[in-house]
């Protein structure tokens, strides 16, 4: 099987989203070649939980988020949301299902219609779905705008470009909330924002999550932000999941060599801490012809012959902590080369 294992899936009645063996491939023209963007990953999210997805640029985070929304629908695999299999829904039923799962994107300004006023932008989903009377709709919009800290009066008079980046991100959050969704997929929602504004948006998401009983999937490459907001984190590498763990555990006790590299690259805001030497060089290999065995092996300091031929599967090394590696840093047998020093 192509998958990297399912040991980490939970048998819990509170599972809201369950993704199994997700594969997304993009054919390259008529060459017969394809981009293996996502190669058989599985994960689940419980009601009220925040799952963080991290990994280098191009590892398939956005593709995963979009595949959940069936934008486009995956090459293969199963996506069950609240008991419904999304991959087999008709177009109309999927449109309906999308009101329960919303997505917000990295670039706040360009994801909003530049020609409409902000209040109308937030109102639009309600008019499309014809929810309630006009008066009820406007009342709901204004309440949500207040909630995210945007003055409804100003929203009625202004276009998106008259707001700052952080404010535009608040506006897209408001828009994603009006239909009362169960889950929001946030794709790099704060990457384009100043650190000071980032903190405001993260706090806002945390508040809204409690208030509206939301479940979040939070995609980002800034690990400090992901750690802060997530309950559980999945680390992706070149279309695969290499580690799954509770957020605090992952940082305290990384088990996959790639997770350790990611962690050691985070700049520490303290000049007295020496900058750590980065242990991998180069770029991730091409997803067109991914390496055999463990996909991280060409860059891994611990790689053995086994890593070059046999693909590791996710297994539990301590309660709730899963890793797909033949020689994990904790909870497994270290390779000889590592043990000797």
């Amino acid at each position: 099987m192509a998958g990297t294992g399912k040991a980490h899936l939970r048998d819990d009645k509170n599972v809201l989203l369950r993704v199994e063996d997700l594969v997304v491939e993009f054919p390259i023209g008529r060459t017969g070649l394809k981009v293996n963007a996502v190669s058989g990953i599985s994960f689940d999210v419980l009601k009220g939980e925040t799952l963080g997805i991290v990994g280098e640029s191009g590892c398939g985070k956005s593709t995963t988020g979009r595949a959940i929304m069936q934008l486009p629908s995956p090459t293969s695999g199963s996506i069950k949301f609240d008991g419904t299999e999304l991959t087999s829904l008709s177009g109309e039923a999927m449109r309906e299902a999308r009101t329960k799962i919303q997505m917000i994107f990295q670039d706040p300004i360009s994801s909003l219609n530049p020609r409409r006023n902000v209040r109308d932008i937030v109102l639009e989903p309600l008019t499309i779905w014809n929810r309630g009377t006009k008066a009820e709709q406007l009342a709901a919009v204004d309440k949500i705008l207040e909630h995210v800290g945007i003055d409804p009066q100003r929203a009625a008079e202004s276009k998106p470009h008259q707001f700052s980046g952080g404010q535009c991100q608040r506006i897209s959050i408001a828009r994603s909330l009006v239909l009362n969704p169960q889950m929001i997929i946030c794709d790099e929602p704060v990457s384009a924002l100043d650190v000071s504004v980032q903190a405001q948006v993260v706090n806002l998401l945390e508040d809204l999550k409690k208030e509206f009983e939301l479940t979040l999937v939070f995609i980002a490459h800034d690990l400090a932000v992901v750690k802060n907001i997530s309950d559980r984190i999945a680390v992706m590498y070149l279309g695969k999941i290499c580690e799954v763990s509770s957020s605090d555990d992952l940082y305290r006790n990384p088990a996959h060599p790639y997770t350790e590299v990611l962690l050691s690259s985070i700049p520490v805001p303290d000049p007295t801490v020496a900058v750590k030497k980065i242990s991998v060089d180069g770029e991730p290999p091409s997803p067109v012809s991914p390496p055999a065995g463990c996909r991280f092996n060409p860059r891994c300091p611990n790689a053995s012959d086994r890593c070059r031929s046999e693909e590791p599967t996710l297994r539990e090394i301590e309660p709730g902590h899963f890793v797909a590696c033949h020689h994990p840093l904790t909870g497994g047998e270290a390779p000889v080369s590592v043990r000797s020093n």
Partner: protein
Amino acid sequence: MNQSDMVRSEHEPLVETIDVKTHFKTARGIARAVDGVSIQIRRGQSLGVVGESGSGKTVLSRSIMGLLPRNGVIREGSVRYQGQEIGNRSDKEMQSIWGREMAMIFQDPMTSLNPVMKVGKQISESLRKNLGMSSSEALAVAEKLLHDVRIPEPARRLNQYPHELSGGMRQRVMIAIAMACGPNMLFADEPTTALDVTVQAQILELLSEQKRDRNMSLLLVTHNLGVVAGYTDEIAVMYGGKVVEKAPTKTLFANTKMPYTEALLSSIPRLDQPSHSRLSTIPGRPPDIVHPPKGCRFAPRCAYVRDLCLNEEPELQQADSPDHTYRCFYPVGSPEYLERRVELTRKGELVASEGSN
């Protein structure tokens, strides 16, 4: 004029600005993008310029390089390079400085590389133009430069177009181009903001290595204080077109004076905090530089504000050492600051960990 050149010593700044102002005429009025900035960079030193979006970081770098729009700009103050005034030079006179003496890596690598020109040609062009090399010489040097910035298979890359490279590699190509003529001074404007952490770390590492090996000076622009902590000798914090605090990097972190710097630092999420820790934020937004506030520009957002701050603009103050300056009436640690801090903590408006560094 050349006399200053002769008496130049190691300790004299390579680049110096004295009260530089760069204002733009806009429909709404005069935008005071850079409003009286004095900085110095010595040879082989790196200066971090940090501040929120719109604080004037890019305009400051461009003012030093002489890369400003032709029309609608009001410039004042002095820009010196190796002791000589360059602030009033024409584009033609600056040609001998651009590339060879000072070079710049721009904020967005995709829009600053030429999309229809092969990477090799983009690098070799400037070598031919500025150093008069032949095409084959220039291509050989270009390959060496790509190798220096750790691009795998440099020979093959010479024949690729920018869109065939990843974001990290494009940023390396930008660095290679900037390094081509061996500049003394490199401006790097948010060179890593668009990149993910592993590549970010590699690029910063690469820049400091090049700085060391070539005894080059570096001005590193960023909005994230955390990013520059390990890679700069000095930091200037900008707010609303002014430098509001400047100090050697270690001093700035250990002995922060300006409440704004403290607020910027505490808004960075830290790995040593447990997940779901409440992040500190700075309320409100940066000042309107067309109509800046009358007193301290940070006053409307400052937790330590008092009447004086709203009415008078704080002058540049010296902290414990001459190389540490700031603009604030009630700096971190002052009696008024401490008094307000106690109040805020009691009211629960201050997270316990905030500003504890």
